[in-house]
């Protein structure tokens, strides 16, 4: 089913030694995931227990200030909470009661730990248990940590989903579970393709609301749609569910491999698989070819950001003709990344963690055609004459599966096309 692709490299990156760095990290903390999670789960509310910094991060991080009242807020710790003058647990009860009165539509409440709440060891698990008992059955209260001392950027989503796994009911049903918060349009496409192959029933984590939840158990098989879901992967394993390992569904190749791994699990015939995937595959191929014209032959350098770096490097090198110089990721989880690492030809530096100033030096020395980095670095690098793709857009845009494969290539090619356009004008 994967015969149309270039053969896998003779030496992939699975055994490449990893450059491990520690120093200043230029990445978000896990609280940032709330920005998309709170829109994905329409009956959920995220209450960060933290400081003014946490609240400020949430409203500034993504440049998101939406005029609708958000389904997230911060319980800002004050001097009295820290000095022990007020019982933090009692204070939290008061704030949550106030919140639930204001928003009676909330059915799931996430208490989200932060750096300060972790440091003062505020026990949010205990709070969640107490509140769940108090507000049941109408509201379920869960907790997870999005703190910067423990999580980076997309790990927040992982921690959130992992917290939901233990409360799913037990079930022996043979079901497929797709794990990862995807844009609605993408999720529907994935389900559509799998159902056309006769695979089902298909469940999604996170479910759009609490009422549409399902059970998990030893007959559940699951596929990850995002590469950062390591804790969720482990939590599902503890419930007896089995992971279908595959490269991540970016680009024509990634999507095909990912679907084929699931198809094999469900005994779908090669003919049926071809019948379902042929047309969208052809469309993806065509769209990528068009969008990747300016990428072909160019080099790319990834700063660590969302954990998507390795699968995207695989996509850019194998489907868009690029050469990877450095692929930095906040952390590298072998078990989940191996299928992608196997496909990524040996050559680029693999870096884990970050010392941003040293990494900037390497990047400047390499002069890549395209640098993929966070918002704090993009404009300064552009001003130095480097072309950048700001990485957060890769998390905020539908980029998975066939119909978005051209858009994904387009996200990388647009900065290059733009620079060329502006240079043309400047030259005239």
């Amino acid at each position, binding site marked *: 089913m994967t015969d149309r692709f270039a053969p896998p490299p003779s030496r992939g990156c699975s055994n490449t030694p990893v450059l491990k760095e*520690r120093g*200043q*990290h*230029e*990445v*978000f*903390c*896990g*609280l940032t995931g709330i920005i998309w999670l709170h829109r994905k789960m329409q009956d959920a509310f995220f209450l960060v*227990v933290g*400081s*003014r*910094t946490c*609240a*400020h*991060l949430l*409203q*500034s*991080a993504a*440049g998101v*200030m*939406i*005029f*609708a009242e*958000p389904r997230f*807020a*911060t*319980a*800002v*710790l*004050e*001097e009295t*909470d*820290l000095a022990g003058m*007020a019982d*933090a647990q009692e*204070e*939290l009860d*008061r*704030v949550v009661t*106030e*919140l639930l009165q204001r928003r009676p539509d909330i059915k799931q409440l996430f208490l989200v730990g932060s*750096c*300060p709440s*972790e*440091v003062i060891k505020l026990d949010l698990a205990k709070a969640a248990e107490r509140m769940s008992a108090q507000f049941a059955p109408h509201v379920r209260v869960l907790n997870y940590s999005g*703190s*910067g*001392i423990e999580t*980076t950027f997309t790990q927040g989503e992982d921690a959130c989903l992992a917290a939901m796994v233990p409360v799913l009911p037990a079930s022996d049903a043979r079901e497929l579970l797709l794990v990862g918060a995807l844009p609605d349009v993408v999720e529907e496409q994935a389900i559509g393709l799998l159902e056309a192959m006769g695979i089902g029933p298909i469940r999604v984590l996170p479910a759009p609301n609490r009422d549409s939840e399902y059970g998990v158990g030893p007959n559940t098989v699951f596929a990850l749609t995002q590469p950062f879901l390591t804790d969720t992967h482990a939590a599902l394993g503890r419930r007896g569910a089995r992971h279908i390992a595959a490269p991540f569904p970016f680009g024509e190749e990634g999507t095909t491999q990912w679907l084929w791994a699931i198809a094999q699990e469900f005994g779908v015939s090669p003919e049926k698989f071809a019948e379902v995937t042929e047309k969208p595959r052809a469309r993806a191929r065509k769209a990528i070819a068009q969008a990747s014209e300016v990428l072909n032959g160019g080099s790319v350098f990834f700063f660590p950001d969302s954990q998507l770096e390795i699968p995207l490097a695989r996509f850019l090198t194998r489907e868009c003709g690029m050469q990877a110089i450095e692929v930095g990721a906040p952390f590298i989880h072998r078990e989940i990344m191996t299928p992608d690492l196997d496909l990524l030809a040996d050559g680029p530096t693999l870096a884990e963690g970050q010392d941003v*100033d040293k990494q900037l030096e390497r990047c400047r020395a390499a002069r890549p055609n395209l640098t993929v980095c*966070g*918002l*704090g*670095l*993009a*404009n*300064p690098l*552009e*001003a130095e004459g480097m072309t950048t793709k700001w990485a957060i857009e890769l998390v905020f845009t539908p980029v998975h599966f066939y119909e978005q494969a051209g858009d994904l290539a387009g996200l990388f090619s647009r900065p290059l096309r733009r620079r060329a356009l502006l240079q043309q004008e400047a030259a005239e």
Partner: protein
Amino acid sequence: MKLTVWTYEGPPHVGAMRVATGMKGLHYVLHAPQGDTYADLLFTMIERRNHRPPVTYTTFQARDLGSDTAHLFKTACLEAYDRFQPEAIIVGASCTAELIQDDPGGMSETLGLPVPAIPLELPSYQRKENFGADETFYQIVKTLAKPVEKTARVTANLIGPTGLGFRHRDDITEVTGLLMEMGVEVNVVAPMTARPSDIARLGAAHFNVLMYPETAETAARWMEREFDQPYTKTVPIGVGATLDFVAEVAKLAGVEPKLDETRLRMPWYSASVDSTYLTGKRVFLFGDGTHVAACARIARNEMGFEVVGLGCYNREQARLIRSVAKDFGVEPLITDDYLEVERRIEELAPELILGTQMERHIGKRLGIPCAVISAPVHVQDFPARYSPQMGIEGANVIFDTWVHPLVMGLEEHLLTMFREDFEFYDEAGASHHGHKAKPRPVEDTRPGLDPGPQVATNSEAPDQVRGTGSIEVVWLPAAEKELKKIPFFVRGKARRNTETFAAERGVAEISVDTLYEAKAHYAR
């Protein structure tokens, strides 16, 4: 513990970053966990700066806690010095580092750095961004500014502008021009544009122009004491304030007051007949104390608006705002609770909001036009064009900015005259705004037909019963229908006036007659 949806100010270390980022040759070593680097993008994205803020974050993680976070800080400090070679370093802790009590200030002293290391004590759980900026600038000035001989010619320092400030970049140009016209030269502009070596010669100026009390008042007071430098009390936002400022500067500098008004168009624009429709428009102001106080004066005296409410989010300016509110005969709102501001706006139903990025969102939600007058602001309020708030050009800019969100004068009349028109009606939006006009729902356009039960829009009461004081006032269906014929931009005012009128007279039911009696009563 306080429930917070949106915040007007960031934590105090963001204030320190605003000072550091405005300056040159200064580096900030911040003891902070991973994630606090989000603050970089306030500067690189929102303000579109082409350099990273001069900040090194120690980036400690959970596994470092209790073992070597102090060591991390020391290493970060030394490496930052080696890499960036600053003239001075400021050191401090973010909210999380404050809890682990590593004492960055004390540690930095032991490192033997060849440049001054200035420790910052910014209590994250008590204070906020403006305090952080003010305190940081004060500490920098206190450490670096030395007594020096005054310049031979009359000079002034411009103090207060920082990174991420609302129009600070352009205000500097404007105020520099105002001083030059009177023959007063600028000695140092700080923190923005200054190096630590410039801070050292602040004392050479004859007086200080305190542009933004939010970020530099403590430093101004200190320099007044130490260097015998008086500072200006007038912030030159608006025509009247600019004239007062010129008079104040003239007195401090011992020169003749002088203001070139050839480029000043604002008073004529305001006086021209096209602006008649602005008369008595009800406005609500909210922002930092300095901008709100200045803009309230412009709103009433220079635009002819009626100020129906005002407030500020920074408690440091509460006294100023209370006195302004007293002068305007309105209730001051001193709060940093976004929801409280929203409630007050909903209650007052103004025709225009002059606020911050937050009020822009409130306005959008309630369907009330809004112009931005104060930080916090978003990327669209850092325009490419020259767009100051202060001085002559500032007044021109303010006129344009405040009028822009409103429906234009003649258009307003036409909407009132032909309010049943199916294409051209009030909620279709102002003609000069880009968005698509929404056609009126079909059933509304047929005269004589009962439109049936209508869903109240968000900006109005969800039901027909509203309390005003202790009396419950009920709108009769005919009156409610008549009210709907009034264009939306004055409907809030009409509803409010009518209810007040009815309540004062003990009328429990509002009829069409009550509506028009109230209209006659309030007619001007």
